[in-house]
């Protein structure tokens, strides 16, 4: 059987490459931040008759909103992203455009002030840190500290890949991004724990076995479960992606990326990573002993 632990460098390199690619995109293109973070208005209109992007833009110019980002949603719907508009301003513009282009139904109108975004970012980071600390504590209690570190390492791997991919694919990021990241963290750790549980059990049964072999064996014993669980979750996510409507498609896309990354990191990063941490710790101890 393929030896995951022996070939672990390949998997580290694959992950590193994807992360570097994502970080590169993050530095050059940045994230496609939605109005939840930047502040602004999103207006979604469904016109009664077919209208072109140009017609909408021309109509917007009457309200000095020609700089807005326009996106056609099909079915005569348009998504218009503008700067922060007051209630009166947005109403005037919506009514004006609707009248000019043969009538329209307002599907949604969202306004987020610039203050909210800053608070949201602060809260999101705080939430991530707190969740990570609590999980380290729990895993240290139930398993051991090094496994907690390896699990959190896998989790940071997933977060970096999600953020990197969000930048690479220019997925619009809104407040649900925080929920997506935390869900993946929960899921990814869940996956890792099942593997660590098997390692814990194998350690009890067979203390003599070489650690790398033992980790590899545990990974393969849980492999069917790892793959099958990802599949069942992916079934739901793919159904939501294709049939769930575009309001949640960004959220679902991020979850799909995260689930894939979470399953990968649990098998190929956290398990072998823990093996490396153990090895380093042992060598240090040996070195310390030799020095003494």
């Amino acid at each position: 059987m393929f030896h995951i632990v022996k070939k672990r460098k390949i998997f580290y390199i694959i992950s590193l490459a994807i992360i570097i690619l994502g970080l590169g995109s993050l530095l050059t293109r940045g994230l496609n931040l939605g109005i939840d973070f930047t502040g602004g208005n999103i207006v979604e209109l469904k016109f009664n008759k077919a209208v072109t992007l140009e017609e909408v833009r021309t109509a917007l110019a009457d309200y000095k909103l020609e700089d807005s980002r326009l996106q056609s949603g099909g079915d005569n719907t348009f998504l218009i992203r503008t700067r922060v508009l007051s209630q009166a301003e947005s109403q005037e513009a919506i009514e004006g455009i609707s009248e000019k282009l043969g009538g329209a139904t307002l599907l949604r109108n969202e306004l987020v002030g610039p203050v909210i975004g800053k608070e949201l970012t602060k809260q999101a980071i705080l939430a991530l840190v707190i969740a990570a600390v609590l999980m380290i504590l729990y895993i240290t209690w139930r398993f051991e500290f090094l496994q907690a570190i390896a699990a959190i390492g896998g989790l940071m791997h997933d977060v970096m890949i999600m953020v990197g991919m969000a930048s690479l694919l220019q997925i619009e990021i809104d407040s649900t991004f925080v929920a997506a990241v935390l869900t993946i963290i929960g899921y990814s750790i869940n996956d890792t724990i099942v593997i660590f549980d098997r390692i814990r059990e194998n350690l009890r049964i067979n203390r003599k076995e070489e650690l790398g072999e033992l980790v590899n064996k545990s990974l393969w014993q849980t492999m069917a479960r790892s793959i099958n669980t990802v599949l069942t979750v992916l079934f739901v996510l793919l159904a939501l992606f294709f049939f769930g409507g575009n309001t949640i498609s960004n959220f679902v896309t991020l979850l799909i990326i995260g689930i894939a990354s979470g399953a990968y990191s649990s098998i190929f990063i956290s398990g072998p990573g823990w093996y490396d941490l153990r090895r380093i710790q042992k060598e240090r101890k040996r070195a310390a002993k030799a020095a003494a």
Partner: protein
Amino acid sequence: MKWGSVLRLFAVIVAVAVIAVFSTQPIFPNVKWLPLTQGINLGLDLQGGVHVTLEARDTEAGKVNDATMNQLLETIERRVNAFGVSEPVIQREGKNRIIVELAGIQDPEKAVNEIIKTAYLEFKTEDGKTIITGADLKNAVESKDQLSGQVEVNLEFNEAGTKKFAEATAANVGKRIAIILDGQVLQNPVVNEPIPNGRARITGYSSLEEAHTIALLLNSGALPLQTEVIEKRTVGPTLGADSLNKSVKAGIIGIIAIFAFMILYYRLPGLIANFALAVYALIVLAIFSGLHVVLTLPGIAAFLLSMGMAVDANIIIFERIKEELKDGKTLRSAINSGFNRAFVAVLDSNVTTLIATAVLFYFGSGPIKSFAVALAVGILTSMFTAITFTRWVLNTTADTGIKNRKLYGA
């Protein structure tokens, strides 16, 4: 075959099927939603509605404090009640914010306009100083002058207001005092003489109806604070219904895929897991209904996601049973040790996910809270059904005499 076990199994299957159909399917045309689904409220994003966050600012005349904020809250409550929306949410957030949520209204934009019309009334002198605000107002009544036929709104100030008004008019004889409502000058009359009795009037309306609206506005809404909409999310009813339909459809397709996969891969245990999943869904819906959970779009996503994860516990257990069978154990002991050994893994892995949902719940707002609750309820329920219910059904099935190990995946 042991017919007692077969009968017991059959009874449970029928019972679950009956409960499922009667509690979720609209069988009776007049009762739209039955027990398990009627207690679940749909969020703004699923039925249309509006979420507004208002922020109050200090003005020259009034500072943001508990008293003024409560006054603002009361006024908004009175306005919102006028819409006749069932179960509106009106709550204070932090020091100077108020959140209003109205679900299921046909014209959310209009509602926002009505809510934020918090009629900020002020009287300003020529040099731009605010002398009186809405807080000094006691009453406003519209009337029609019998002689001239002119429509006007008569203002009556409270004690403090009367004093301020008297002083200001005394100091500004021959000058103008502007009456400003929400930043718009309604009137800019010249003060002819000091007015000591605390009465003022605003004229220039085209109809009695218009004057009545202004008087009502002033009475109910004249406030010492200025408010600004800092966050607003309105969803039209069409988009809401569309989102609901689409996610229900997506959910059904996803669940069918899970069902098919579980049967193809795990055979008999897979069938049992699917059955447990149906029980799981019923329990989750019952809990949602009991807790009066507001179901939002992310909430539905979490529910569906938790179904994908709910089978996980069963997958861990079945994989274990397969291993035990391959090791040569009997069916009964394989089932028992499979469950016992998988339990620790299921517990530890789910607790870590629960930690994530707890943090989400604590820090999230609105839809994200709903997402966290849905996920947490799902995880707890799935642990229960996977460990107790599946175990019972699997053991009963083994009791019936179906012992072909191939059916169990070995």
